[in-house]
């Protein structure tokens, strides 16, 4: 039985490590499906983390923190949208700018909060189901953001592939010229997608500063925004595969901690570098399969839309 509870403990930590990746990646997936490449995930995430923490400290309620994180993520993404969609700036460069700005802003806002103990978001047990041995605590005694991450995966799947809205989003991402000719507002659809991505990145940030480590640490996203971007490629723009990918990465980063604790002979730095190395390896594996990448990549990804009216 103690073995089982040990496994359960490891699985619980894997869920904690995977959720921020999943939240950010599912948002970016929708953004990229609409044909926009927002490399600013890291920046939106860290601003979400600091604003979520700040609002929680100010009000005492982590739920208000979550809301604040979402709003600030959306605000950042609107900035990105204005530049790339209205001013038609280069999406790669603008995304980088968003990340640099976000890291700077969060450092400045967060300075007052360094070292303050945070308020952690409490799990919500689902009555009945959470009493099931083993599975109960894993699946039915989580905080609201974990539930939200699963709900988002399902919702994104149904909206993108089973609804008219999804058809429009994908049309805009695959052929913005035709979508425009059919009378859809490419810019409006993309704005909404970008804002959805911002909200999800904000949520991911809030998860880090309210649950993963309930405090503010400068640069606490530590490249997770970039890993989320890699996950979208890994998942070849499919929601269910994002779920699998996020949990795979979460597992790698957690097993690395356990290996360090177990005293494996490798230096700690090598273990810490593992998630980044794994990202590179996964990207190579995916890009080797050319047809898979070609079929699913939104055809207009990263291309600015200039209406010819």
């Amino acid at each position, binding site marked *: 039985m103690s073995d089982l509870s040990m496994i359960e403990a490891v699985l619980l930590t894997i869920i904690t490590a995977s959720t921020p990746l999943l939240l950010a990646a599912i948002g970016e997936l929708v953004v990229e499906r609409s044909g926009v490449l927002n*490399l600013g995930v890291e920046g939106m995430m860290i601003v979400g983390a600091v604003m979520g923490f700040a609002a929680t400290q100010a009000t005492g309620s982590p739920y208000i923190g979550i809301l604040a994180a979402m709003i600030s993520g959306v605000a950042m993404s609107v900035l990105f949208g204005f*530049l790339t969609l209205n001013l038609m700036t280069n999406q790669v460069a*603008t995304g980088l700018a968003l990340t*640099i700005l976000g890291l700077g802003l969060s450092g400045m806002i967060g300075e007052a909060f360094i070292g303050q103990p945070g308020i952690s978001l409490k799990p919500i047990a689902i009555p009945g189901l959470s009493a099931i041995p083993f599975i109960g605590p894993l699946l039915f005694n989580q905080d609201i953001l974990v539930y939200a991450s699963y709900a988002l995966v399902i919702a994104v799947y149904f909206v993108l592939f089973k609804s008219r809205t999804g058809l429009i989003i994908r049309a805009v991402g695959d052929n913005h010229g035709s979508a425009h000719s059919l009378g859809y507002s490419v810019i409006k659809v993309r704005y909404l997608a970008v804002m959805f991505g911002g909200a999800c990145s904000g949520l991911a940030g809030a998860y880090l500063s309210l649950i993963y480590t309930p405090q503010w640490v400068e640069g606490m996203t530590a490249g997770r925004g*970039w890993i989320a971007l890699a996950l979208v490629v890994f998942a070849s723009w499919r929601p269910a595969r994002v779920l699998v990918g996020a949990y795979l990465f979460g597992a790698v980063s957690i097993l690395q901690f356990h290996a360090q604790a177990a005293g494996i002979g490798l230096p700690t730095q090598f273990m*810490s570098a593992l998630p980044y190395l794994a990202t*590179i390896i996964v*990207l190579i594996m995916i890009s*080797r399969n050319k047809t898979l990448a070609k079929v699913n990549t939104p055809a207009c990804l990263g291309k600015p839309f200039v209406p010819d009216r």
Partner: protein
Amino acid sequence: MRIELEKRAEHSQLMTVVSPLIAIGLTLVCGSILFISMGYNPVEALYAYFIEPLTTSWSIEELLVKAGPLVLIAVGLSVCFLSNSWNIGAEGQFTMGALAGSIIPVLFYDFTSPLALPLMVLMGILGGMAWASIPAFLKVRFGTNEILTSLMLVYIAQYILDFLVRGPWRDPEGFNFPESRIFDAAHVLPKIGEGRLHIGMIFAVVAVLVVWWMLSRTLKGFEIKVMGETPRAGRFAGFSGNGVVWFGFLVSGGLAGLAGMAEVSGSIEQLTPVISPGYGFTAIIVAFLGRLNPIGILFAGLLLGLSYIGGESAQVSLGLTDKVTRVFQGMLLFFVLACDTLILYKFKIVSNAKGVKEAANV
């Protein structure tokens, strides 16, 4: 009534020069608003930030010390960005250049011949190139996204540095501090004058001139620009897409590696767990502010160097947090990109009625 963008037939020459200046102006305006919201007098704060450092010879020298690596890295990045490859891992190539350049002073500290420094320079360049060749190889061979791989390699390089200075390269007489031994005088780049300024700045100026010449006067430069703007046309002209990717990454990696080596050997004079205040990322801003033009990058590097020094100066004189520097840098890049639109597009105010009439005529 609405505002529309109309593509210019040609890049606006005037705006090419004016748009970075507008961006700087807008950054200063937003900076002032930021300072007011933090309860500082904006005039005082901006003075402390951007003017005060220019009033003492000490801080002007320090400004050049900071601008050196920024310009070196950014010049290399401009080659890469012009060819439409996105190397954003210069920070990692900087770190690996610093590590490779430190092999002699840390492991072969007895080797103090005059050949040591040129060898260190060479190894620094090769170290940066080697690290940059990973994303280049993966992009050319498998089509792997170079943005993500080059960035992931930044984290890995930092862990390698951390491992070395805490482990095998730690100074045996260093009281267990995570630092390498202090470099022998024979392994330190010559200084210019009495202060901290070293010949790394000269490397930067040379790099600016060479790359400027290469881009504007040689076939290679033409090839890079053609492949960046219209790869299809470039292929018809017989240019190799893969060759340009390799070239861009090797040049930018080599220069970032050189900057790393020069920083460690010229400024810090030993290896420490942190050797860069984010030069590799700030250099991206420098490259864009300089409009991917080596001469422009020289000026942009000085301005961003000033933002680092200004941050320190404002911290001392006003107690302003030095985190403001990063905010300034981020805002600047945003405005630079936004103002670039002025070069490519004209703003046109159209009334809705007219728009309808035009549509009817068509």
